[in-house]
Each structure stands twice: as structure tokens, then as C-alpha cells.
């Protein structure tokens, strides 16, 4: 089969966009189109485009990958392979705020695990999960480059250094109102 024929093959069920998928929400789809139009001429554009989509839309779902593969005229595996390789790309939407706990050496030695356990208790979800109200996503990350202020936490793109388990609630409160638990 030539690739053009391949593209007319119906999408597998997993690749059909869900109701709230950016591929079928017009303004999100326009965002993707704009990103693709701006960067697709660059050599090695795949990473650039994926980085922009992740930043603008917040995740890169399977149908979005499929859409991108069609637009760039590359096999889906080239998109999927890259998305799964890099830890910054997520296939599921994150919460409104991304809380990244540094698990680099200095922060680990400085007690990062205690911060995580405390945050898990406050928000009632585990590391890697999103709160049911979609407000916070807890994630581990590698060194934030603020090792002399260990243990460090990055909320969205704001750095919070010199944390302690009993202070983490103050940090979280800066972003959303949370009750004292």
C-alpha cells in the first residue's frame, strides 16, 4: 500500500478523539495548526513542535499525535516514539498546576521524600496523579538547578526552595485555596 492509501484507512478506536480532545476543539486545533505552520520548515522540527504543543495545550494525546503525523507526513511511530522517550511530554492532561518535586541528589539528601509524602497527604493523591478537581498534578523531576536551596519544588514555572514538610501547605495555598488537613 502506498502511504496515501494507508492514510485513508480508518483510525483505530484508540485514536478516535474523545469529546474533549484538542483535535476536535476548534480553538485548540487552530493552536496546533499554527504551531505546525510556524515550525515545520525547520530542520528537526519534531521536537520543537512537540515542545510547543506541550506548552500551549498541556498534553499530547494519541489523536493529537496521529493528527501531527498526518500533517508532517511521517509515520505515527516517529511521533509516538519521541513523545514516549522524553519525560516532559505527557499523553494525559495535567491539572491546572504542576507541582514538580526535585529528586536530584541534593534534594534527596535534603529530605525531598518527606515533602512528597506530606503533599500526598494534603492533596489525597499519589505522586504522578492529578487531584479529582483537576487543580494539582504531583510529579517527580530531576534536578531543578537550585540545589543550594534544597529541597526544591517547582510549581508551574515558579521555584520554591528550602522547603520543609510543615511548610509545603503554605506553598500550595499560594496557588489554590486548600483546607487545612
Amino acid at each position, binding site marked *: 500500500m502506498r502511504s496515501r492509501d494507508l492514510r485513508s484507512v480508518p483510525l483505530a478506536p484508540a485514536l478516535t478523539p474523545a469529546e474533549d480532545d484538542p483535535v476536535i476543539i476548534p480553538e485548540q486545533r487552530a493552536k496546533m495548526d499554527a504551531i505546525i505552520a510556524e515550525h515545520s520548515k525547520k530542520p528537526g522540527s519534531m521536537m520543537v513542535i512537540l515542545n510547543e504543543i506541550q506548552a500551549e495545550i498541556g498534553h499530547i494525546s494519541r489523536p493529537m499525535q496521529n493528527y501531527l503525523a498526518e500533517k508532517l507526513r511521517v509515520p505515527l511511530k516517529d511521533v509516538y516514539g519521541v513523545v514516549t*522517550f522524553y519525560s516532559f511530554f505527557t499523553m494525559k492532561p495535567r491539572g491546572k498546576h504542576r507541582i514538580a518535586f526535585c529528586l536530584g541528589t541534593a534534594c534527596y539528601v535534603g529530605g525531598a521524600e518527606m515533602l512528597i509524602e506530606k503533599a500526598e497527604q494534603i492533596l489525597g493523591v499519589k505522586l504522578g496523579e492529578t487531584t479529582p478537581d483537576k487543580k494539582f498534578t504531583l510529579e517527580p523531576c*530531576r534536578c531543578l538547578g537550585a540545589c543550594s536551596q534544597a529541597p526544591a519544588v517547582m510549581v508551574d514555572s515558579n521555584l520554591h526552595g528550602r522547603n520543609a514538610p*510543615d511548610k509545603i501547605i503554605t506553598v500550595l495555598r499560594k496557588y489554590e485555596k486548600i483546607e487545612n488537613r
Partner: protein
Amino acid sequence: MPVTTLDDLKTIKEQALPKRAERLAHASAAQDSEIRPPTPKEKRVILARCGVIDPEDVYDYIAEDGYTALLKALTTMTPRQVIDEVLKSGLRGRGGAGFPAAKKWEFAAAQQSDVKYMICNADEGDPGAFMNRSVLENDPHAVLEGMIIAGYAFGAHQGYIYCRAEYPIAVKRIQLAIKQARELGLLGKNILGSTFSFDIEVRIGAGAFVCGEETALMASIEGKRGEPRPRPPFPAVAGLWGKPTIINNVETLANVGNIIRNGAEWFTQFGNEKNKGTKTFTLAGDVVRTGLIEVPLGITLGEVVYEVAGGIKDGKKFKAIQTGGPMGGCIPEHLLETPMDYENLGAIGSIMGSGGLVVMDEGTCMVDIARFFMDFTQDESCGKCVPCRIGTRRILEILTRICEGEGEEGDIERLESLSKYIVAGSLCGLGQGAPNPVLTTIKHFRHEYEAHIKDKKCPAKVCRKLITYRITDDCPGCMVCARNCPSKAISGEKQKVHWINPELCESCGICMSVCKFNTIVVD
């Protein structure tokens, strides 16, 4: 207005200096808190401008004689002379391996190709290291100037800066710097009125440690999975899109301008015989003064720990210093006389790496640290080589077992032999260096491994399964610990002694860290 002569640069300098004086007079403590005034053992060369100039103003960099090195190279030196000057300076790559920078340029210069690439490696993945971030954020033009000069030396016309996504401020400042440099004709077509053209683009990573490895980094710029490939061919021969490519670290490039400006002789006054110049290090962990430092290569680890960093904080005892990131080693007290240079650190089983130093006090368990690093490397392994992918996982399993009190006779030997296979059968530096933290901790802290395996005890009282928390009878009953315990294991009434229910306690240590009266102990 494009700059073309030394007089143009001088004019800008004259305009910028009064403005700077005014800015500094009004500056509050808004500057980078990681850059402290230097201690006597330090020598600031790379960091000299950090915190002094406004990184978002190219004129301020020019006021520090910025871009005079570029002008000197383009107008008075041939590419060969630039290479010779940097060769004479003895500058070695600051990204880890310490390969002479200009030697690489020489290889690339010898390649016949109309397209060549210059890449700046700003991926800085080592946990515990942030010197490249500081330079990019505080002195971005120094990196640009070094890149342009390097590009001139071996004939590249396009440059890329590959920066990790965790550094948004660095990305922003470097992009602004590129824009300003273009406006002044310092970047782009016919730089400074010469026949040399060179431009730079920023590419951003996406959270993969292995992309710091040069061949993986190039794959990532090409828009692919960041998997290393075998060398040869070396990038200088066939690199990015198959073209001759040079990859240098941020700090390597930040040195180039100074060397051309002040001459190789000036540079060689710092350092020892085989290791010339200064090197930035980052200090983290249990020392009095953490942060960014710059010292001549070859001063001893002990001098850094006790004189520059002010020793261990809270009056505790030194246990180990970790150099070189996850592929480095843990160095014990009796080796603190070791000079910090590529050869001497290599000789004791560690590496220089990019310069992250993490100091650990007596409260750190070395088996747990080895487990931590193995967790890191097995997670970051790209999975291409079986010894690296499976071997690091096996080591992690054994170490986890030991930390949980399930260690068996023969585990240490198993770790040692697995390590040998991983080193021998791995393609890139990640796998080859992964066993270093395990091997150095076994070598220097074998008694701790034995205590875990034979006595089921963690001497540093860190490994959760081997310790218990207890509240002493002196507890005044402030209730803070009970409120903070994530497992609801603490009970007690106000102003009465509290107690921990061992059935519920997960030994997380939070209670001990929040108790203001020090009435919680660990056995």
C-alpha cells in the same frame, strides 16, 4: 547600528558604564542569591561578570570589553591562529571528559565540508550541578562570543544551543542575547564587517538526562529519540545531519573569549600542569556555605569543603563528598587531600563531571545513596544496551533489598561482578559510569553494607525498614507532630506526652523534622 570597529565598541562602553554605576548603586539584594562574594581560595574568571552586569543588556557586556575577543579574532587572526592560541592555553572541555577543546576544533577544521555545525551543550543534567545555568542566566553573551569564535576557528556557519527545559529563565535570556547580538551585527551575515557569517538557534530538551551525551544530543536536535550511537564516526567527522559538528559545554565556551582577549599565557597562570585555568563548582548538601564557586583547577577537595564551604553545618561530622553526578563516586575523609583535576579524581574511581559537589554528613546512609543513584541511572538509561538496561535494574533490586533488611551473604560480590559487566558492555558514558557510585561506596564504606546485610541495621539511621521512631518522656505535648504525621500514627492529648503507634508508623521522619523540642528519637 551595526558594530564594525574597536572604536564602535569603545563608544558603547563609554555610554554603558555610567548607566551601570547608577544601576548598581540602586541594586538591592535582587541579584542571584547563589553568587556570594568570593572566599580567599577562590578565583573568579568565568563568574567575574555574573551579578555585575545586566544579562539582558548587551551594552553592559560590551562595557566589560565584551566582543573585543571576537573582533580581535576576526580582524587580526586566522582560524588556524585561533586554534593555536586555544591549544596553547591548554583549555580542556568542561562538560566532563576533559578533552582539549581546540584539538576537537582541529579535527573539524580539517574536514572538507561546506556545512559544519557548532553546538553548545547546555543540557546540564547532573543532579547537584547548576553552574551552566548560572552562566547562561547571568552572562549569556560570553557563551555566544565563545561559540562564534569557535565557529570561526573550524568553519561553522550555524550554531545550536541545546538547553534543558528545566531552565526557562536561561532560555529566555539567551534568546534575548541572540536577538541583541544580531541587531549589532555580532551575529548573522558578515559579522563585524568581516566575511564570516554565523547564526545561532536555541533548541530545548524535554527532560531526558541521556541527551547530555553528545550523540544523543544531536539525535534530539534532529527531532528524534535521544539515543546515543557508537563512535566512531566522531561528531567532528560526521555529526548533526551527517555533517562535521563540534559540541562544547557552556563553560568551555565561556572561557574562549577570555583566552583570546588576554592570551593563552594569562590563562595558564591558573591551575596545575595538566589542568589549566579555573573551574566552577556547585556546592550543595550539608555544608555551611552552599552555592556557586570558582577555584583554580587542582586545589584539594578538603580545601573546598573546609575553607571555601566553611565545613559541615550544625557541628556534625563529614562523611563523604560526591563528585561527578550520577556517574561519579563518593569520596571518604581520608582522600580529601586529592587535588580536584581530571587525572586525580579519575584515579580514585570518581570523575570530575561537570562540577557538582554534594557534601554528606554522618546522617547519610551510603547504601541508600548508592541505591538513589542507581534508581536515577536505571530510570534514565535509554535502554539500547542490555547490560545498561537490565544490569542497572538488577543492581537496584539488590540495593533495595539490602536497604530493606533483606540483604544476603554474597550480595556485595554480586554487585561487584554485575558492575564489571555493565562497564564492559555499555555503549555510552551513562552505562560505563553507572556503577561508580556503587563501587566507590563498597570500597570506602563496606562496613555499612555489612551492617545492613549481617546485622540488619542502618548505622546512619536512614533506611526506613531498619529504624523505629519513638517519642521520649520529655515531650511537652505541643501536638505538632500528630498534626503532621501522614499516617495518623501519633496520638496524645494537649500538654501530655505523645506516643507513636508502631503498627501505623511508616518511618517517614516527618514528625522528627517538625518537632521543635527534639523529643523524638530514632533507634
